[in-house]
Structure formats: structure tokens, C-alpha cells
């Protein structure tokens, strides 16, 4: 396709819809549109956070993935039990790259697959007795674990287990918090409900259960950063350099103690709005803690965010903020000068979770790249509203895209880069389209903060300018 415009994009949408049976077409129509930067709200254009259609090959996962995989899993000093059959825990074992330090099995439990491994008898007779016993065994095996979370898999909610009462009873017995999480995979329409449920369980079982030894006017928390490839670390050093005290990390490289005392922060800094806006809003209502969204992808957004954060504090912090921005400017400029000439004008299509499609636009623009298509796996309408302000020009938007749509859109638009997940990666590479995984940073990172930007830029360059894609046509093809 020569150029994506409102007209060509709309025609493409029509063409994709034509492949669906009638009922499915009516549904999918509400998830596809051409973004118009003139419009402030897109709620009229898109219907997000709805059930995926059966059989269309949605990319989405489940509530368990949202709770165990995203929110709870990275809390490093707790044991997270995948409660149910063996699979869920096995497939999500260590694949999300939530970096942390410590010794696995001693004082860090992130990289373990701890499961009740349900057998037929557990389904028939219920799993509560087993849960009780395994909690005792977990305490014996991991004496330094500070608490336990129970991550429910599908059968738990279907067989009528009462994990809440087991948790309550056993918490008294072992003298440590036990958090029952009802994140069965069949609940809700995607990972998103799992985030919400996990947020609610932090609220109900952990937040406010302990008080900090001291509080200062500079106490902030990082929320919605899962420390993928060390993202939260690269962010933390910036905040500390500003003179702020990061009192808790939610939940990448986080601990139970931090979540318990999070209610005494002065300001909540929210990176992934989608997965942690719930607890942020709660802390605002209940404890009067303001929260703000920030964006640490790419120097433009980082500088904007640093200033926005600093504006909440006194002149010293604001001066520090300017110093940091100034100090990093030459390095960022050098990075841009290295990579921008190789990436200028390149077109990107994104399909990621609930935040990144809009958050990384600025970083791509710093490199002179243009985002021409984007969509969220599990975004809500407010995510699309926020996106509208970030996207410039004609952008094809696809919510809860199916594999069919993604393949067709990419094949027609032929962008220079696709950023999505591991399930999409190899399809697009076969199509000869350079690809980066934008959930796991494709086993690279960090991408956040000043330390992350150059890594981001290099990785995009390595994908877009990979020599391999230039050899697709054998030299003997097309000879006269």
C-alpha cells in the first residue's frame, strides 16, 4: 500500500470484515476504525473490553494470566501458588522476564513454578484440603517467604472450593498473610479482569496492614512497572536522582512490605494505567494520595514526565529535574544521531497489551518513525481515548485483533516493523516483516528511562535493518 489514509484504511477494514460470517462481522465492526487526531474521544468509534468471539483466534489470555502473570507474580518475597492443574503455572513459568535479585528458593520466589497440580480426585472431592496441606508444606520449604498468594485456575471456581476460608484459617496458623485470588481463567474477557481482581486483593489483604517507620514529603511509589528486563530499575534511578524516595514498587521487584505500606506515599506514579489504575484510584479515595500517569519511553516523553512529576514537589526537586534532563541530553542526542538516520520515516504497526501501543509512540517519534497502526489486546475505552491524543495522522486501530486481521493488515500495509507478542512474531517474520516483541522486549531491555532508550533504539534498528529480510527473493527468481 502506497500510503495509509482515512480512505484506504477504511477500505481495508471493510475488506477484512467481509471475511467474517454475518454475526461476527457486526461484532468486529465495533473494534476496527481509522483514528482521527481531531477527535478527542473515540468512544463512539470503538467498543473495547468486550468478549472475544469464539473461533476467531484472539490473541488474548485470561484473568489468571493478568493476576499471576502480571500483577502478583513479580512480588518477589511471596510464594505464588498456581492453584489447579499443572498447565497454567507451567506455561507462565519465568516467561515474563520480571527481573529481580536474590536467591531463588531462599529469599526470592519469582522464578519458581509452585502448583497444587490438581488430579482427578481434587476435582471430585474438592481442593481445599490439599490447599491447606500445601500451604503448610510451602512454609516448610520456603521459611523466608513473607506470604503466600493463591492464584485460582479455572476448576477452582467451578467445583465450589472455598479458598477464602482456607486462606483465612491458614494465615492464622502460619502467621503470615495469605491472599486468595479469584482469577479463574474463565472470568471476564481477557487478562484485564485479572489485573482488576489482583488489585482488589492487594487492597483487601495487604494495603495498609503495616506502617512505615518514617515518612517524608518526597515519598513516591512506582505503580504498573513490572521490571521487564529491568525497566523499573532504570526508572527508579531517575526518580532517586531527582531527590525522591521510592517507597514501593508495584509490582516488578516489589515486596509484600512495600505493598503493605504503599498507602503512606505522597504521590503515586502510574506507568501502566491499564493494570493498576484500580489501586491508584482506591488510594486516592481512601488515603488522599494523588496519582499521575507518566511515560518513561524515549527522551521527549521522559523529559515531559520528569517535569510533570517534579511539578508536584518543591523547587529543589524541580531544579534537580532540569539538571537530570540536561545531563542526559547529550547522550540522548548522540543516540538519536546514531540511530535516527537509519530509522527515519520507517512505519510501525503495534499490537500489544493495554498500555504500550500509546506509550511507545513518542519513543518511535524520537527516532523519526511513524506509527501507522495500533491496537490493544485488552484495552478499555479510556485507553483508546488516551491513544487518540498520542497518535498523529491516519492510524489504523484494531481492538482485540484476530490473527486473521493482523495478518491481512500487515500484509497490505507492509510496515517496516511490527511490534507485538511471541504468538505473532514468527508469522510476521515468515512474511518478511521485521518484528520486535513488545511485551518481553524480545529478551532484551530495559526500555524504560534514559538507560533504556538506547537499548530500544538499537533493538529497533537491529530489527528494521536486519540483512536477512533483503534476501527473500532468490536470485534466480524473475530472470528473463
Amino acid at each position: 500500500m502506497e500510503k495509509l489514509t482515512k480512505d484506504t484504511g477504511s477500505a481495508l477494514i471493510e475488506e477484512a470484515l467481509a471475511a467474517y460470517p454475518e454475526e461476527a462481522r457486526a461484532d468486529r465492526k465495533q473494534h476496527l476504525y481509522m483514528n482521527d487526531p481531531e477527535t478527542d474521544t473515540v468512544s463512539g468509534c470503538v467498543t473495547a473490553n468486550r468478549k472475544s468471539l469464539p473461533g476467531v483466534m484472539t490473541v488474548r489470555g485470561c484473568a489468571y494470566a493478568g493476576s499471576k502473570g502480571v500483577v502478583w507474580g513479580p512480588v518477589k518475597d511471596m510464594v505464588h501458588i498456581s492453584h489447579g492443574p499443572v498447565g497454567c503455572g507451567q506455561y507462565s513459568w519465568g516467561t515474563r522476564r520480571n527481573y529481580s535479585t536474590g536467591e531463588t528458593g531462599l529469599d526470592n520466589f519469582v522464578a519458581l513454578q509452585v502448583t497444587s497440580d490438581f488430579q482427578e480426585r481434587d476435582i471430585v472431592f474438592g481442593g481445599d484440603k490439599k490447599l491447606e496441606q500445601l500451604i503448610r508444606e510451602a512454609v516448610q520449604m520456603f521459611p523466608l517467604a513473607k506470604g503466600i498468594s493463591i492464584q485460582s485456575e479455572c476448576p477452582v471456581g467451578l467445583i465450589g472450593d472455598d479458598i477464602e476460608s482456607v486462606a483465612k484459617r491458614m494465615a492464622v496458623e502460619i502467621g503470615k498473610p495469605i491472599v486468595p485470588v479469584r482469577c479463574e481463567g474463565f472470568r471476564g474477557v481477557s487478562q484485564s479482569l485479572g489485573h482488576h481482581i489482583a488489585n482488589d486483593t492487594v487492597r483487601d489483604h495487604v494495603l495498609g496492614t503495616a506502617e512505615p517507620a518514617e515518612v517524608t514529603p518526597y515519598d513516591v511509589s512506582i505503580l504498573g512497572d513490572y521490571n521487564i528486563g529491568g525497566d523499573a530499575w532504570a526508572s527508579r534511578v531517575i526518580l532517586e536522582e531527582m531527590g525522591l524516595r521510592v517507597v514501593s514498587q508495584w509490582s516488578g521487584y516489589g515486596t509484600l512490605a512495600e505493598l503493605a505500606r504503599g498507602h503512606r506515599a505522597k504521590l503515586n506514579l502510574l506507568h501502566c494505567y491499564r493494570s493498576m489504575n484500580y489501586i491508584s484510584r482506591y488510594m486516592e479515595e481512601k488515603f488522599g494520595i494523588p496519582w499521575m500517569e507518566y511515560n518513561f519511553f524515549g527522551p521527549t516523553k521522559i523529559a515531559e514526565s520528569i517535569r510533570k512529576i517534579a511539578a508536584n514537589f518543591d523547587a529543589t526537586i524541580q531544579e534537580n529535574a532540569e539538571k537530570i534532563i540536561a545531563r542526559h541530553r547529550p547522550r540522548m542526542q548522540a543516540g538519536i544521531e546514531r540511530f535516527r538516520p537509519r530509522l527515519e520515516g520507517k512505519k510501525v504497526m503495534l499490537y500489544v497489551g493495554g498500555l504500550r501501543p500509546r506509550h511507545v509512540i513518542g519513543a518511535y517519534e524520537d527516532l523519526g518513525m511513524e506509527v501507522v497502526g495500533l491496537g490493544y489486546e485488552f484495552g478499555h475505552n479510556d485507553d483508546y481515548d488516551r491513544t487518540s491524543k498520542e497518535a498523529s495522522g491516519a492510524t489504523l486501530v484494531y481492538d482485540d485483533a484476530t490473527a486473521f486481521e493482523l495478518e491481512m493488515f500487515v500484509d497490505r500495509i507492509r510496515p517496516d516493523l511490527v511490534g507485538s507478542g511471541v504468538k505473532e512474531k514468527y508469522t510476521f517474520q515468515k512474511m518478511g516483516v521485521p518484528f520486535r516483541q513488545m511485551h518481553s522486549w524480545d529478551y532484551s531491555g530495559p526500555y524504560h528511562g534514559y538507560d533504556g532508550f538506547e537499548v530500544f533504539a538499537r533493538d529497533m534498528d537491529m530489527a528494521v535493518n536486519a540483512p536477512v529480510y533483503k534476501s527473500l527473493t532468490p536470485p534466480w527468481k524473475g530472470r528473463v
Partner: protein
Amino acid sequence: MADTMRIKDHNEIFHEERYAKTWEGKRAFEHRCDAAALEKTRAYIRGGEYKEKNFAREALTINPAKACQPLGALLASVGFKGCLPYVHGSQGCAAYFRSHFNRHFKEPFASVSDSMTEDAAVFGGQKNMVEGLKNAYALYKPEMMAVCTTCMAEVIGDDLNAFIKNARKAGSVPDEFPIPFAHTPSFVGSHVTGYDNMMKGMLFHLSAGEPKADKDNGAIGIIPGFDGYTVGNIREIKRILSMMGVDHIILGDNSGVLDSPMTGQYAMYYGGTTVEDVKRAKNAKAIIALLPDSAEKTTGTFVKDEWNSTFASGPTPLGIAGTDAFLLKVAEITGTDIPAELEAERGRALDAMADSNYYLHGKRFAIYGDPSYVEALVEFYMEMGAEPVHVVITNATKRVGKALTKKWADKPFAKGVTVHNGADLWHLRSLMISDPVDFLVGGTHGKQLSTEMGIPLIRIGFPIFDRHHLHRYATFGYQGVINMLQWSVNTLLDDLDRKAMPFNNDFVR
């Protein structure tokens, strides 16, 4: 150019002092655990009392080496031409199966699910099936769809047979459109069980109506089994059988779809066993399952009872004796000779083994994985004079454990072996601490143990996420012996070079 790409990323940047400082500073907000307590517990979890408690676990599983049934069902079903796997149940399961295979094979892996949610939990998933088959058929134009179940659908008791019939009635797919299916509850068996159940479903449905001939057609049917090396192995087995001049049918051949070429166009379906070939297999001379754990019970019974065919459970053509036995079995069944070229390959494998003998002979090792694979690999390493010590098979039954113990009781290199059926990698950790070994054999998840124990991990198993291309190589046949030997000896030599005193750099090993 190289200078441009030189950026400190996650592998390097966190070595910088400022990060150690921020981690240290953060400890003020964490539950403090002082160094003495840490040291005490560190010693404790490496001690004998801890090991006892570890082995007394009844309810808790830590780091198991197994996955659930539908994963295996998917691997079986993509071996058939034009087949789209269809997961009846929660959509998250399909996402997990796909990404698991993506990470191992570094290939696309298509599968739909019918996205059952709360309402389906109450009313059953029939509506999802009707819509799901219809949508998948329209969008992905498969030649067949293979339906398996997640535990959600199993717990609420959905009946695939009835649902699929009703979906046909409702017009979701044409009447003659093949929809093999299998119930694959995640709380029974493991991924190898799911492979078995789905394989039976495929053979049953796709051969239905095919008359049983009076005389067999001379072909041999091969069921590869749940194999992380399925691409390399299927190609190798086809090559061997072609060399022998034996007509063969792979049931099902997923070596194409899991290794399709990069051309600029994505082919969701690529290669695979045709329906015609499945029908032909019904009248084959015999069906051989290369990995008994993923075909013996259900598919084997079906082949014997329903197809009235000869079913051979193995031999697994891995290692010299394993490959010898397989070739003899094929020769015996088909009456063909084993060609000189294969004998030459055997000789080359032996030659390679002699070259590497000194680095494996007498080495003690631990191993984990699926029952049939572990059994065959232990035999292979004993052919090299290595001594199995800890054998952990999470998805082995007591019966399998006993059979292996008995099998190895009198083997000279297996004097120190103990088979731990049903154990997990946390058990293995205690075993490796109390009775250290020289190397570990397994998949990526063995990385933690290898690091903690300071011994090399020889990556042969499933899944392997952190190394590339291994699945394209065969572990089967004499060529497989050379491949495995190459991985093994060079992994040990790399380790040796890292650890040895650099007297003269040991340019020659």
C-alpha cells in the same frame, strides 16, 4: 556498524555500581532479613533435614517437569494436513499453548479457542462451539479442525461428540468437514497423555468408513510422539525408511508446519499427513510408536482393537542399541534388508563415540524429562560409559518407575541409579545437593539447578526456550547419536575450559 550496535543492555548495565546502590537502598523498604539469618537458612535448605521434608511433600509441587494434556493434543493435531487445532474452553489456555510452542520451536503456532466465559460455565459451551466452528471455518479455511478440551470444559462436563453434531446441524461447517476430537482433561496425565488421546481421535475420525482390507498394503505407520525434536526426527525417520525402501506413513507429520520456510508469505498450513494416508495406515503392515509414552495406552489399544492392526510400542530409535532395535523391528516386519549405507552410518556414530569416550565415560549424571525420552537417553549415555544417578520423571506412574528400576538393575553403568517417578525439580535439587553429579540433562528449566550446582546442563528435552535451532536436529537414528554426542561433549568441554587451570590453554582436547 558494530560500534553503532554496541549499547549496554540488561546483560551489562546492571553490573554498574549505581544499580547495586539502588538495590541496597531499596532494602530499607523491604522486610529486612539479616545476613546471619540468611546464611542459616541457606545452609538449612541444603541440608539433610530439609531433604527429608522435601521428599515428604504430598500436596505441593515445585518446578514440575510436565505440562497438561491439551498441549500434547495440539502437537498431535498439527501433524495433519490443513488441520486447525480448536481448543474448547477458556481462551487463555490456547494463548498459553501457542506461546509455549512459539518459544520452543521459534515458529508460528496457530490454534483457535472458543473463548468460554462465565455464561458458558453456567450454560455449557455448546453455543461457543456452534459459533466458534463457524467463525474459524470462514476465516482460516482449514481442511479439518481438531477439537480438544481445557479443564474448564471438562469440569462442567461438556460433551464434544454431541456439541460437534449439533454445530453441524446448525450449519457451522459442511456435513462432510472432518472434526476429529478428544477429551483432554488437564487434571489427568500430562502432555504426553493428551498427544495420545488426540492421536487416537485423529486416526479414529479420519479413517472412519475405510474398509479393512484382507491383505495389508506393505506400508508402515509411524507415530512420532510428543517430541521437542519432532522436526529433525521425523525427517530423519523418513530418510531412514526411504533408504530401506519401506513405504511409510507418518501419523502425523508436523515437521513441515513447525519448520516452514521464510518466503514473504505466511502459510498457516504447511505439509502434514493427508486423510488419504491415514486411511491407508489402517491397512498398513504395522504401526510403530517411536515414543511409547505418548501413544501406547489409547492409540495403541485403538490400533489393535479397532483397526485390528499390529501395534509396536517402540523401540525408540535413540542411541546405538535403540536405533539397532528399531531397524531390526522394521526389517522383521517388512522383510527388508538393512542397507549398507545405514551400516556405514552406524559405524560413523561408533567412531564418533570412541573419539569422545574419555569425556563422558565414568561421569555421573542426573536427568529429567518425559518417560520414553528419559529411558532412551539414559541408555544412550550408558553406551558412552556415563552413569545415571538421579532420574526424575514427573509424569511417570509408579508402574513406569518400577519397570525402569528393574530394567536397569543389572546394568553395569546403572549401579547408582534411582528412578524418581512423580518427583519434581525441587526434589531433584535436594538429590543433587546430597549426592552431586557431573552434569545434568534436561530442558531449559534445568538452568536453575545447573547454575546453583555449578555443573553443566546438556540441553536435551522439552521445552528449550533459551537455545536456538535444536529442534531442527535429529536425536533419532545414528545421525541423532552424533548430534547428541556433539552437544554433550562440547558442552562438557566448554565447562572444562572455563574451570580448568590454563596451563597451556589445552589447545587439543
